[in-house]
């Protein structure tokens, strides 16, 4: 379904245009889809008969570009953070092992207990 619009009404009246154009520019900035590389028409919900037919009528190049823009936009997931967490774990494990205190078993003690000096609150895993 095409978007309902007052744009023609506003453009014909210069006093309205003078106020509305900067407002519309601000709104478009705030919407932010341009920053993701999307066009306004990419946002139109495609769950309607007209839209499906319109998509079928697109030229191959336009269709490809539309899909490309959408794939490029929906990529916001953490790809580095899990790896960074792993590296931090490795580092802290090394720290813990370095600061270890070993109690050797004597005849009286029950088991060879290996105590770590690092308090529980600091351990990250």
């Amino acid at each position, binding site marked *: 379904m095409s978007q309902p619009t007052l744009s023609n009404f506003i453009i014909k009246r210069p006093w309205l245009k003078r106020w509305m154009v900067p407002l519309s520019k601000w709104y478009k900035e705030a919407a932010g889809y341009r920053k993701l590389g999307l066009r306004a028409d990419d946002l139109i919900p495609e769950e309607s008969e007209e839209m499906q037919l319109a998509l079928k009528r697109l030229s191959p190049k336009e269709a490809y570009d539309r899909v490309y823009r959408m794939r490029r936009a929906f990529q916001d997931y953490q790809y580095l953070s899990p790896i960074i967490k792993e590296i931090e774990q*490795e580092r802290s*494990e*090394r720290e*813990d*092992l370095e600061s*270890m205190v*070993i109690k050797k*078993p004597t005849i009286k003690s*029950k*088991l*060879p207990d*290996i105590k*770590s000096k*690092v308090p529980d609150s600091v*351990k990250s*895993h």
Partner: protein
Amino acid sequence: MLSRAAIGRQAQRAARRSWQQQTRGLAEPASGSFQYQTGEANGVKFASRDIPGPVASLAIVAKAGTRFEPIPGLAEGLDRIAFKNTERRTTLRIQRESELLGSVLQSYHSRENVVVGAKFFQDDLPYFVELLAEVATMTKYQPHIFHEEIYPMMSLHQKSYLANTTEMAINSAHGLAFHRGLGVPLFPASSTPMKKYLDADSLSEYAASAYSQPNFALVANGVDNGELSKWVSEMFTDVPAQPAYQIKTEQSKYYGGEERIAHASGNSLVIALPGSSSPTGPFYKPEVAVLAALLGGQSSIKWSPGFSLLANATQSAPHMFIDTKSSIYSDAGLLTITMVGSASDIKNNAGKVVEALKSVAQGVDKETFTKAKALAKFKELQYGQETQAAIELTGAGLVHGGKAYQIDEVAKSVEGVTAEKVQQIAKEALENKASVSAVGDLYMLPYAEEIGLKV
């Protein structure tokens, strides 16, 4: 952290018990023989022998050496990724824990096997059985480990290999003798092919085949068979029954030929002839071991050339290293004579070496033969006394044929060799094409034709 979850509960309980009382006195007499006892648990084959002393050793011997790798680099990769990150603990953790317990971790590969094992105090057996089970079934094959740890080490090793003319000559001789299979070089000389073939996916698939029930065996020295059986059945529970893909084994065929490689520093000449297979294999000829001792080259007595024929033949070149070795594999073997030294020494003495070899085919002096047989038997039994002895051979024997490498039997069969058999074997060997490999100053080093060998 270093919590109970890391060391299996059973293992910790057992370790605790063992600290309280020694399960075995150190001064207990040995059984007296070097016999291995074999067994099986959860489909995993194992062999052990109880020898006195506080230190035990345990190793996985997998049928995954360079002979069996489908693409180059996998055997080396497998031995380099042993004891790195597993599902349960990190590389650092494994290293630190084994250091704290007091042990040595080893992993290496040979032409037929990859051996991954450890030497440790007897009381820590459960810990190391669990560790080896983790290495076999739970290692993580992560791409970043390859880039950070494995490839750099492999490049460094390749550089050191390129400087070693003897290794190059021996690898070349094997290549000439067996072409593919046993002829694949132990460590490749050039760096490009490895990174193309060795990566996380190919190695994890190779490991899934190498560490499957029919393809590996556990071998232990200094460990009670009943104990080992108990821990193996408890820890080795996830070993796949079938390999990921069949490691194909073809009967090795001997070809022969000649190869010459130019090298700016160092000279080596290797002459290889078909030899004997391992005692657990089909073509075992104890005569070859005696022939190797007879030809010799290195004396066991200082400041004297000794009785061996090659040492006496090359007395004019005292600074040249010469040695004869009988390399045994599961279904074939090579008798290699290695000469390392200055190019002129090798050039002048190579002919004499071949003459000495041909003289054996004519006949063997009785006294020299007796000395050679005694030396062969001595070397065999001395080797058997080492704690590391025959781990690889026993494991390979178990995997390939189901028999362990029993040193007593081998020593007995060496005893049964006669001078005629040695003469016969020398004659047969010379009827084949020899494999001659020369690395170094090619202008000086002789061709096989020039020294009288048929290629």
